[in-house]
C-alpha cells in the first residue's frame, strides 16, 4: 500500500493547494511535498525487494487489484518497485520538493495553480515508475504530459505557447506509436498471456516460441517492428538524436523549476521505459540492433555536446548537454553487460541530480540578473558566491570529477560498453569518451565568462546575493551528488545491479553464455 499512499498524498496535496489562496500556496506546497519525500526515503531504507520486478524477482511494496478485462486480458492495478525503479521514485520526490522551493522567487502569479500542478506531476511520476501493469503505466505516462503542458504554457518565457504545444504534440505522437507497437506484441503472444501485467509479458516474450505471428507478420518480423516502434516512442522522450528537436524549445521556454523536473525526471522516463520494455522484453532484437542503437547513442553524445558548444544562452547550454548525457544511458543500455546496464541506470539518477542542479543554478542567476546570455554578465562570483560555487560544483560533476556521481556513472558505462558484445564497441566507446572533452570545453568556457573575471552586468537589475530558499536546493543536490559519487555501491549501485543483472542472465543463456 506504500506506493498508493505516496500517490494519494501527492494528489490530495495537489487538490489542497489548488483551492488555497495564492499567497499561502508556495509554503503549503513545500510543506506538503516533504511528506511524500520523507515517505519515499523511508521506503528506500526499508526496501526489501530483490532481483528484477519484471523477471520474477521479489517485488517490494507490491499490491495488485483486478480492474477490468480487455478482451481476454486482465488489467489490474499492479504496483511494485525493484532496484531500478526505487531510486527513480526517490529522485522524483526529491526533485519535486527542491523544484518547489526553487519556484518561490520566480513564480509570481497564479501560484496555487502552479504548485498544484507540480504536486500533480509528482503523483504521475511516482505512478510511472511504480506501475507494473501496462495500461496503468500508460495512464500515468500520458498524465505527466498534462501538468507539464500547463507549466510551460502559462509560466514560460516569450515563446511559451509554441514550446508547450510542440512538447505536447511531439511526445504524444511518440507515446501512441509506442502503444501500437506494444499491442502488436500483446496480440502476437496470443494465449500465452492472460493479463497486461508487465512481468507476465516480459517473461513470456523471453520464452522461446511464445511470440506467434500476427496478420501478415511472422514472429520475428513482429518482434522487430514492435521493437522499432517502441524504440522510436521512447527515443523522443529521452531524447535520442534525431528525435530531440522538441527539447531545446521546451527547456528554454519552461520556467526554471519546470526545467529541473523536465531534465531531472521526465527524460528518465524515456530511458527507464527503454530499459523496461525494449531491453528487458526483447533482448535478442536489442542485440541484433546493437550497433545502430549504439551509434545513435554516440551521435547523441557528440552532436548534443557540439550543439551545446554553439549556444550563448546558459539554459540552452544545459539543455543540449542533457541530450549529450542521456546518450551515455543509451550506450550503457545497449552494451548488455553488467556494468553497462547497471551504469546506465545509475547514470539516470546521477544525471537527474546534476542536471537538476545546473538548471537550478541557471534559474537563480536569471532571477537576479534577468538574463541568461553568457555575454551579458561576468564576475558573478563576487556578488553571488554560493550560487557560483554550486554552479562550479555542478559543472565539474557533469565533466566527471571523481568522487561525484557523474564520474561513477560514466565510468560504469564506459567499463560496460568498452568490451560489449557488438562490433566496434571499443571504437564507439572511445568516441563517446571524447564527448567529455567537449563538455569540459563549453562548461569551462561559460563558467569563466559568467562567474569569474571583473564584475559586469549588462542589465538594469542590481545583482545581490541569492536568498536562502534559493540556494538550499543547490546545496542539498550537491550533498546527494557527492554522497552518490563517494559511496556509489553502498548507496544505490548494489541495488541497481541486483535488479539489472537478471536482464542479462537469460540473455547469456539465450546466446550460449557468450557475453
Amino acid at each position, binding site marked *: 500500500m506504500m506506493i498508493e499512499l505516496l500517490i494519494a498524498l501527492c494528489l490530495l496535496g495537489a487538490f489542497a493547494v489548488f483551492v488555497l489562496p495564492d499567497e499561502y500556496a508556495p509554503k503549503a506546497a513545500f510543506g506538503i511535498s516533504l511528506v511524500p519525500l520523507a515517505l519515499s526515503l523511508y521506503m528506500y531504507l526499508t526496501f526489501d525487494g530483490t532481483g528484477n520486478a519484471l523477471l520474477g524477482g521479489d517485488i517490494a511494496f507490491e499490491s495488485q487489484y483486478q*480492474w*477490468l*478485462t*480487455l*478482451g*481476454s486480458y486482465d488489467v489490474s492495478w499492479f504496483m511494485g518497485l525493484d532496484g531500478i525503479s526505487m531510486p527513480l521514485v526517490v529522485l522524483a520526490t526529491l526533485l519535486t520538493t527542491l523544484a518547489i522551493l526553487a519556484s518561490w522567487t520566480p513564480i509570481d502569479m497564479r501560484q496555487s495553480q502552479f504548485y498544484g500542478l507540480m504536486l500533480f506531476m509528482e503523483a504521475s511520476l511516482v505512478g510511472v515508475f511504480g506501475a507494473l501493469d501496462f*495500461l496503468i503505466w*500508460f*495512464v*500515468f505516462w*500520458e*498524465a505527466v*504530459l*498534462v501538468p507539464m*503542458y*500547463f507549466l510551460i*504554457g*502559462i509560466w514560460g518565457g516569450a515563446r*511559451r*505557447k509554441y514550446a*508547450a*504545444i510542440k512538447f*505536447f*504534440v511531439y511526445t*504524444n*505522437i511518440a*507515446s*501512441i*506509436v509506442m*502503444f*501500437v507497437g506494444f*499491442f*502488436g506484441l*500483446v*496480440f502476437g503472444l496470443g494465449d500465452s498471456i492472460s493479463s497486461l501485467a508487465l512481468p507476465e509479458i516480459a517473461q513470456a516474450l523471453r520464452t522461446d516460441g511464445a511470440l506467434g505471428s*500476427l*496478420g*501478415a*507478420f511472422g514472429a520475428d518480423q513482429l518482434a522487430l517492428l514492435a521493437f522499432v516502434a517502441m524504440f522510436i516512442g521512447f527515443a523522443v522522450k529521452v531524447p535520442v538524436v534525431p528525435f530531440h528537436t522538441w527539447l531545446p524549445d521546451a527547456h528554454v521556454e519552461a520556467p526554471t523549476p519546470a526545467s529541473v523536473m523536465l531534465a531531472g525526471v521526465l527524460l528518465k522516463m524515456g530511458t527507464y521505459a527503454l530499459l523496461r520494455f525494449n531491453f528487458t522484453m526483447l533482448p535478442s532484437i536489442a542485440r541484433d540492433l546493437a550497433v545502430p542503437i549504439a551509434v545513435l547513442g554516440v551521435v547523441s553524445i557528440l552532436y548534443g555536446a557540439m550543439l551545446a558548444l554553439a549556444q550563448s544562452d546558459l539554459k540552452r547550454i544545459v539543455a543540449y548537454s542533457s541530450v549529450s548525457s542521456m546518450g551515455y544511458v543509451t550506450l550503457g543500455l545497449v552494451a548488455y553487460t553488467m556494468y553497462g546496464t547497471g551504469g546506465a541506470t545509475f547514470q539516470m539518477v546521477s544525471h537527474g541530480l546534476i542536471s537538476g542542479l545546473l538548471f537550478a543554478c541557471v534559474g537563480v542567476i536569471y532571477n537576479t540578473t534577468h538574463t541568461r546570455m553568457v555575454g551579458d554578465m561576468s564576475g558573478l562570483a563576487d556578488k553571488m558566491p554560493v550560487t557560483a560555487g554550486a554552479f562550479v560544483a555542478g559543472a565539474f560533476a557533469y565533466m566527471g570529477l571523481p568522487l561525484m556521481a557523474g564520474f561513477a556513472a560514466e565510468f560504469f558505462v564506459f567499463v560496460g560498453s568498452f568490451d560489449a558484445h557488438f562490433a566496434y564497441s571499443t571504437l564507439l566507446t572511445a568516441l563517446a569518451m571524447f564527448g567529455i572533452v567537449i563538455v569540459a570545453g563549453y562548461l569551462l568556457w561559460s563558467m569563466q565568462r559568467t562567474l569569474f573575471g571583473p564584475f559586469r552586468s549588462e542589465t538594469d537589475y542590481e545583482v545581490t546575493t541569492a536568498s536562502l530558499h534559493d540556494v538550499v536546493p543547490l546545496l542539498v543536490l550537491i550533498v546527494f551528488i557527492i554522497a552518490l559519487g563517494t559511496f556509489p555501491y553502498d548507496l544505490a549501485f548494489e541495488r541497481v545491479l541486483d535488479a539489472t543483472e537478471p536482464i542479462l542472465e537469460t540473455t547469456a543463456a539465450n546466446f550460449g553464455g557468450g557475453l
Partner: protein
Amino acid sequence: MVEPAWAATAPVLVLASTALALFLVDSIDPESNRPRLLSGVAFVGALAAMGVSLVYLLTGVGTEPISLYGDQLVVDQMSLFFQVIVTSVTAVVVLGSHDYLNSHRYQAEYYTLIMLAVTGMTVMAAAGSLAVAFVALELASLPSYALVAFMKQNKGSVEAGLKYFLIGALSSAVFAFGISLVYAATGTLLLDGIAEQLVEGTELPGVLGVGLLMIIGGFAYKTASVPFHFWAPEAYEGAPAPVSAFISSASKAAGFALAFRVLVVAFPIASSGVQNALDWTVVVTVLAVATMTLGNFAAATQENVKRMLAYSSIGHAGYVLIALAALTGTGEQSLILGAGMIHLLVYGFMNTGAFLFVALAEYWDVGRTFQDYRGLAKQAPLVSVAMTVFMFSLAGLPVGAGFLSKYYLFAGAVNGGLWWLALVGAVNSALSLFYYSRVVKALWIDEPDEPHVIESYPSALYGAVIVAAVVTVGLLPGLVLFDNVAFDAAAVLFG
C-alpha cells in the same frame, strides 16, 4: 426476460409517450410560457427511458434476442446498449436546453421534436429489417432538420437547416435505392433473411454489391462520415448548440447502431454471397482513413470553436469506423465491435459536454472563436476545468474515459490484423491534441483582449456540463462496469 414480450420495447414507448405528453401539455395551454413544465416533462421522460434501458441492459434482457412483430424489431443487448447512449445524451441535452432556450417562444415544439427524434433513434438501434431501418432513420432525421433550423430569426440556423435537409434527402434516397437493390438480389428485407439468402449466394452479385454500397452511403450520412459528411460543419455551426450536441452525439450513435447491425447481421463478411458481391470491410477501411484524416486536418484549421468540434466529430466517426473495418474475420469479432460501442458511449458524454460548454458561451455571448474564449477560466473556473477534461479526453489523454475507449479501438484494429489502420488512427489521434489543446490554451493560458462580463451562472446548463464531465472522468475507472456488457452485447450479434 420480460413479460409480455412487447415490454422489451419500453424505452421506445416511454419516449414516444413523452413526445405525445408534450403535445398534450401544449395543446391544453398553448399560449402560456412554462419552460419549467415543458423541460421537466422532457427531462423526466428521457431519464425514465434511460433508466428502463439501463435496467434491462444490466439485468440481461435480450441476452437471447427478443424478436417482435415478425422479426421487424429485435431487442437484444446491443440495441439496449445504444438506447442507453442516446437516452442519456438526450437527458443531458434537455437539461442544458432549459437555460439555453431561456424565453424562446416555441419550447413545446422544441422538446417534442427532440423526443420524436430520439424515439426514431431508439428504433434504429432495434431495427430487424431494412424497411424498419429506413422508417426509423427518417423518424430520427425529419425532426432533426427542424431542430437545426429552430432559431428561425437567425440566418445561419435556417441556412444550416436547409443544407442539412437537402443532403439528408439525397442520402435518404440513396439509402432507399440501395435497399431496393438488395431486395432485388435477395427477395427479402429482413436482416436474418438476407443473411440466409447470401449463404447460398445470389444470382445478381453486381446488383447486391451496388445496393450494399448505397446502403453504406446512407450510414455515412447519418454518422457524418466521408463522403456524406459535408452537412455536418454547417449544421453543427448553425444549429443551437444543444441541438448540435444532440445530433453529433446521439444521432451519430444511432447511425452506428444501425450500421453495426445491418452490416454484421445481414451481410456477414464470411458468407460467399458477400464475398462475391462486395467486401465491405475494404470499403469501410477506406472510409475510416478518409474520415478521420479529413476530420482531423480540417479541425486543425478552424478558428470557430463550434466548427472545430464539428470536424472533430467527423474525426471520431472515423475512429468508430475502425471497429467495422477491423471485422475481417481474423480477430476476436466481439472485442473489436465492442470497442466501437464503448467509444460511442464515452464520446456521447464528452462531446455533448463540449457542445454544451459552447452553449454556455453562446448564452454568455462571449463569441464563437478561440480568440473570444481567451481567459474565460478566470470568470468560470469550474466549467473551464470541465471543458479541459472534455478536450483532453477527446484527444485521448487519460484524464477521461476517451483515453480507454480510443485505445480499445486501436487494440481492436491490431487484433483484427489491421496494424497500419491502428497506426493511422493513432497518429490522427495524436495530432488531434493540437487543436483540442487550442481551446485549453485559450481558456487558461491566453490573456483576454478585454475582461469578460458574466452576469449570471445558469444552474441547469452548468449542471449539465458538470454531469457530463463527471461521467467522462468517472468512466475511466468505472468502465469496468460497462466493458464486458459491451463485449457481450457485441457477441450477441455474432451469434
